[in-house]
């Protein structure tokens, strides 16, 4: 996984799946960009309509949680890793406080309802913490 100076870089793997690495400022105004990315990627992977919407909503909730946790003027990094039967999204910010995203019960409930699996992590990093969320979504919606 490389990090580019631009907003996004796509790394083509031998298997043909392109990993997309997006780095934006950890700012509320950037979340719409990330969920648009998520929807785009789901469309390319032939997700069904419900699954596209669920991934868009899940990425929004995850990134919003991290924006609120992150340090002002910090970076939010979001990696989309597609594979034939799923997309894995990893997002992380630098935070001052080691608060777990799941402390926000409403957002966490929505997020975990939308994705097939969600994990969170907080670890020391530099003089603060790194807060991250990983979620996995599959091409067919599980709703209804």
């Amino acid at each position, binding site marked *: 996984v490389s990090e580019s100076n631009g907003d996004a870089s796509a790394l083509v793997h031998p298997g043909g799946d392109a990993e997309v690495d997006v780095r934006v400022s950890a700012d*509320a*105004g*950037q*979340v*719409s*960009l990330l*969920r*648009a990315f998520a*929807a*785009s990627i*789901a*469309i390319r992977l032939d997700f069904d*309509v419900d699954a*596209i*919407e669920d991934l*868009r*909503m899940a990425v*929004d*909730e995850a990134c*919003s949680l991290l*924006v*609120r946790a992150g340090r002002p003027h910090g970076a939010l990094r979001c990696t989309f890793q597609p594979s034939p039967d799923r997309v894995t999204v990893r997002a992380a910010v630098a935070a001052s406080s080691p608060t777990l995203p799941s402390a*926000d019960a*409403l*957002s966490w*409930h*929505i997020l975990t*309802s*939308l994705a097939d699996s969600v994990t969170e992590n907080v670890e020391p990093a530099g003089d603060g913490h790194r807060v991250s969320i990983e979620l996995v979504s599959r091409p067919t919606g599980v*709703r209804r």
Partner: protein
Amino acid sequence: VTVVTPAVAASGPGGAEPLVEPLRESCRMTPLRRPGDAGPVREDQSVQINSEGTDPVVVSVSGEIDLATSGQLETALAEALAVPGGTGLRLDCAGVDFIDSAGLRVLIAARGKADQDGRTFTLAVASDQVRRLVEIAGLSGVLGLSGPGPDAQPTAPVE
């Protein structure tokens, strides 16, 4: 983003007098940039809110309600619930393309404020995505969202 609120004449405290200005014509906001204009249309600041009337105050919202824009909805709903002589709030979310937990929190708070003040709160028309989120959150009852949605309207393709 423009938030249009009813220009009801500021009546005296207590709001005892009957409605002086029953209905006001809807004022559609004019986007600062139209699609044809040069330059990119920014994705953030993409919510439009329009309020009219007093019995109840009807607030129509379109666009995307998220962490960046929910504050505008919060302001509009607070103003709608403070309109002198207003009986309540009717929220039309048919044009909402996207809402998340940040927007949901605003709706829950508005519902609570309305209850507290003895005003009504109705989530009158909701798009499929709004319904989906409200149902996941288990708030259909709290927000008065029940019954079938506007069916036969396929979800707009996401670009």
